């Protein structure tokens, strides 16, 4: 495998980890987060600072990254979710949270401000990323097929009806947000030890938007959809690198096309499965004949 290809795949899978996390929150409880890059950044800095300054074991640092981001998710989620902010207000709150985190990272002594942290050890390898992605997807899959997952979907579908069925909406959303933040944190930790350099300007609202776009384009309420979308969104700009600045136009066009032709996202509310593929090929076959 060429290094170039494995590089794209690694970055793509790191994004997959963060996107699956966000899918559990946005896709399954229906609240939009526009500040998920902050969880990614917190994870990246936590892991990097631990291995760089304190020589902590890489895997422990990854766990610490997940814990730190999860904890921040709890701190952010508690007041905003308790206050039952409506979806749009919640999105604005997370947008503010994302920007505040970036400004904080630019001004704290330990993060070395805008200069960033250079020379982080290169511990992240493709097998490590693959293993983490597999574990995260496995947990997410099990969650969505559990009683709690069904409750989360019920919250998205009709939160009043969910409440009437005995679902504690606040706890359900908070649980999803913490899991989602922890996924972002792990992805950030992997990212830091993959690029060996991080600085606050890497974690802007552009990155948050990419995560949200992957969840929406992949299908709210699906795991496999956002996984595919994250991989496509990372690889398309890379493949189009020859087109120079036009690649970002193509990227935007791709998003617009998805919204026009698949407003429910690539997978909608469904998952990819044997039956789904068979059905899809069957329809293609019929379409060809007609």
């Amino acid at each position, binding site marked *: 495998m060429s290094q170039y290809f494995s590089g794209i795949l690694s970055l793509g899978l790191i994004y997959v980890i963060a996107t699956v996390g966000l899918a559990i929150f946005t896709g399954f409880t229906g609240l939009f987060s526009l500040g998920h890059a902050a969880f990614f950044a917190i994870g990246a800095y936590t892991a990097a600072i631990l291995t760089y300054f304190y020589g902590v074991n890489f895997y422990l640092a990854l766990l610490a990254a997940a814990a730190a981001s999860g904890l921040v998710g709890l701190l952010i989620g508690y007041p905003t979710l308790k206050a039952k902010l409506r979806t749009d207000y919640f999105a604005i709150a997370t947008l503010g949270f994302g920007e505040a985190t970036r400004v904080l990272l630019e001004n704290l002594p330990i993060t070395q401000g805008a200069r960033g942290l250079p020379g982080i050890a290169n511990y992240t390898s493709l097998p490590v990323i693959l293993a983490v992605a597999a574990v995260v997807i496995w947990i997410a899959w099990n969650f969505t097929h559990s*009683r709690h997952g069904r409750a989360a979907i019920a919250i998205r579908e*009709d939160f009043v009806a969910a409440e009437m*069925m005995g679902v504690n909406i606040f706890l359900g959303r908070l649980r999803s947000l913490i899991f989602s933040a922890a996924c972002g944190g792990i992805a950030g930790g992997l990212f830091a030890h993959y690029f060996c350099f991080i600085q606050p300007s890497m974690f802007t609202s552009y990155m948050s938007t990419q995560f949200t776009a992957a969840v929406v384009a992949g299908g709210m309420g699906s795991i496999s959809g956002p996984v595919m979308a994250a991989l496509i969104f990372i690889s398309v700009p890379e493949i189009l690198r020859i087109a120079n600045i036009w690649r970002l136009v193509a990227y935007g066009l791709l998003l617009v096309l998805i919204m026009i032709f698949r407003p429910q996202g690539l997978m909608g509310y469904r998952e990819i499965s044997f039956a789904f593929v068979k059905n899809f090929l069957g329809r293609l076959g019929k379409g060809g004949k007609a």
Partner: protein
Amino acid sequence: MLSIRNLNVKYGEIHALHDISVEVGQGRVVAVVGANGAGKTTLMTTLAGLLSPASGEILFEGKALPKEAYKILGCGICLVPERRRLYANLTVRENLLMGAYLRKDKAGIAADLERMYDLFPIMRERVKQYAGTLSGGEQQMVAIARGLMSRPKILLLDEPSLGLAPIMVQTMFKAIKDINAEGVTVLLAEQNAFQALDMADEAFVLETGHVLVAGTGKELLDNPLVQKAYLGVKH
């Protein structure tokens, strides 16, 4: 079983329910009839904890209801809301399982699923269909079945006949009778006054937030005032 005493509910300045006092006895069918805007849905959603009363009290089996809406179901009160509010992108089976969200007895849940399919046989053919793709009548059946899956002591039905074909309305009222025969107390809010009064043990008429008349279902059917206003009988 359920006592509502001097209940007042307000939406801001608007006084939606005035001093409502109603008793619902164990195993009874009690009907609430009235026109649009009379306060039927307000009463039902208040009982389900989705609105908080301005004053007055609601006692269920002698105890005050918890403040949080999600704890109401645990007490044995289940609302089947107006316009059904199903989870459109979950299948029929998943909708029913959501009804049993608070229950842990797997064997009991499986047995109750079968019971629901017996109660509404058409659902058996729709098990794997997404609830949003069902007809209005089928959705209403799923909504009632979802409520029953929680094994409520009292079922609050808000306009179960709304938007249904006449034949479906018959099926629905028959099902409600069956449910009651199995020991579930029913509080039924209906615009379809004739049928609601016909099957109710007791009933009361709501008009602009006041209890206009109360009595047995039979008494209200014979009441000239009710006949004129709600049953379309000319004198």
